[in-house]
């Protein structure tokens, strides 16, 4: 059996000044999963993504990414791990202006040790894969928002990382473009990439096979933790229908999807920090 791509055990992250962003989070993500991490602003989901992405180190706890013991690695080692293992997609794309889509994507491979010709070849292939084979020479300002995010996704997957982390990938897009981007992420997952998506869009969270809810630095729900709770989006959608706003929910919305899902759980609220069984996914 292949080891899980992500394995967090009792991970805490406190910032100087006493702010606790993560308070004993345990989470295991198996190879090939497509998982949503949802929660209001300040729930710690971004910190969790940074820890999974090795951009941030936990204050305590065990973090294993692709089998590597993250706290034990040096900064150089983590950089190398990110270069080979993890792809990032950001809400605001982070594309370089006045640089063609091809070179933006090829730039993502700069730290992989590949030669320029090979980088460009792979970049072209990645752009082809996200459906932008006809936009190689376009600069970001010549692309629509959805296309820009596709370029960013192409950059993240050009090096074929086993793990793709997306932070609000549709947050800056209209719903049609957002749907297209989600479809692309589903396709990438279908071809084997493990994908973690941070979102506070309920509809998007609901459309993913596994959903983890966060609040106050703890995991308050995990659709994979409770076998009695079917991993089906209709659940979330149904339970939220009466109060769901058309826009992404307010951070402090008491009818937060994760919260209401929890209350509907027959198994009760899972204890924060409980180790979820990844086998169930």
């Amino acid at each position, binding site marked *: 059996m292949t080891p899980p791509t992500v394995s967090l055990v009792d991970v805490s992250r406190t910032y100087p000044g006493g702010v606790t962003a993560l308070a004993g989070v345990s989470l295991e993500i198996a190879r090939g999963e497509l998982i949503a991490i949802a929660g209001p602003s300040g729930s710690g989901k971004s910190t969790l993504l940074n820890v999974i992405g090795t951009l941030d180190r936990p204050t305590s706890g065990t973090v294993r990414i692709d089998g590597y013991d993250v706290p034990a690695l040096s900064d*150089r080692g983590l*950089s*190398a791990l*990110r270069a080979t293992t993890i792809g990032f997609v950001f809400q605001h794309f*982070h594309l370089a202006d006045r640089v063609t889509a091809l070179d933006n994507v090829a730039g993502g491979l*700069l730290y992989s040790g590949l030669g320029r010709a090979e980088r460009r070849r792979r970049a072209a292939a990645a752009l082809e894969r996200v459906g932008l084979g006809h936009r190689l020479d376009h600069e970001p300002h010549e692309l629509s928002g959805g296309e820009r995010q596709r370029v960013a996704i192409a950059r993240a997957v050009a090096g074929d990382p086993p793990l793709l982390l997306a932070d609000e990938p549709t947050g800056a897009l209209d719903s049609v473009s957002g749907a297209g981007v989600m479809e692309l992420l589903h396709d990438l997952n279908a071809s084997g990439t493990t994908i973690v998506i941070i979102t506070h869009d309920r509809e998007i969270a609901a459309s993913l096979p596994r959903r983890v809810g966060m609040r106050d630095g703890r995991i308050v729900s995990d659709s994979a933790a409770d076998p009695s709770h079917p991993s089906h989006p209709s659940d979330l959608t149904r339970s939220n229908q009466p109060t769901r706003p058309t826009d992404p929910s307010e951070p402090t919305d008491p009818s937060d999807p994760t919260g209401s899902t929890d209350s509907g759980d027959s198994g009760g609220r899972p204890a924060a920090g409980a180790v979820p069984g990844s086998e169930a996914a």
Partner: protein
Amino acid sequence: MAASRTERPEPAPARMRPRDVLRVGAAGLRTRPLRAFLSALGVAIGIAATVGVVGVSSSSGAELDRTLSALGTNLLTVSSGRTLLGEEAEMPPDAEAMIERIGPVESASAVGRVDGAQVYRSEEIPEEQTGGISVYAARADLLAAVGATVRSGVWLDGATLRHPAVVLGATAARRLGVGAAGPDVQVVVGGERFTVVGVLDPVPLAAELDAAALVGWPVAEEVLDFDGHPTILYTRCEEARLEAVREVLAATASPEAPNEVEVSRPSDALAAKQAAGRAFTGLLLGVGGVALLVGGVGVANTMVVSVLERRAEIGLRRSLGATRGQIRTQFLAESLLLSALGGAGGVLLGAAATTGYALQAGWPVVVPAWATAGGLAATLAIGALAGLYPAVRAARLSPTEALAAP
């Protein structure tokens, strides 16, 4: 849980190729071309100033060398000084002949001041307006001895030496308003009309002749009451034995009072003047250095601002797998590239300025390679210094902080 797995060795980051480092550095400059141009311009001005100063002074030095090699550095002059009592000393009339008897002396010539004789453009000029022109009796071989050239007309020859004919130095001719020599151009020398048969070019090795009116030795004795004592002796001797000649020259020219004559080597004086100019060059070079420093501060400023503005880019690169070292290298490369561009532009500008100035002055164009190389080396040092702090700051930025930046 699969925590029992054995530890995997730490992954090693891939090395960036030098060409990629260069490309990334250049990309940073390309996105803000105007700012890059302006801060490179600061360095360029500093480098241009230093290269230009060195170039112009080198070109003028080359011009002096050319002049000296044309005029020769083997000229020694003996001029009569003053006696211990402060009176004007006199060399014996046969001093010239005695000097010619010294072995290594190749030739000797002399001029003698005609005391009391003044030069006027015409009899109408009031007596007190002398114009500061001295009248010298000259030998026929003077021209060759001092390396003088005639600008207009001819030099005194066997016939004109005995007739009221005069050759004017360049300054004297200007003061008298004589543009060119001719049979109908006359000036009044010591109350007598003399025909101006020639006008000299400036004489670098015997500047005293520039403000002189030169007449033949015999005519000076006959018409102007010249006493026949030489005032200045011009001696050409073998270059290799010049010092030996120099030592005996005073005693030979004036055996009775060798301390009353002064021996000098005019080419030394020219070189000394050049050395004085070099001190001034040093000062200008200092000014250029200050300009260069200011340019360096401009580069540092640009880099600091660039790091502040590009935090998101730094965060992205870190997320893509760049190590701290690679971020540091990127910004250092950018800073080096920026100042190298400025340096190259400055060297070109400085060389162009030198060329223009030297050509306009009629000098040979010399831009020393050491100045060019030194200028470029200085820019690289400046780029490294200016970029170091911003680069280190960029590398220290934590990836999450950098990514959180707008």
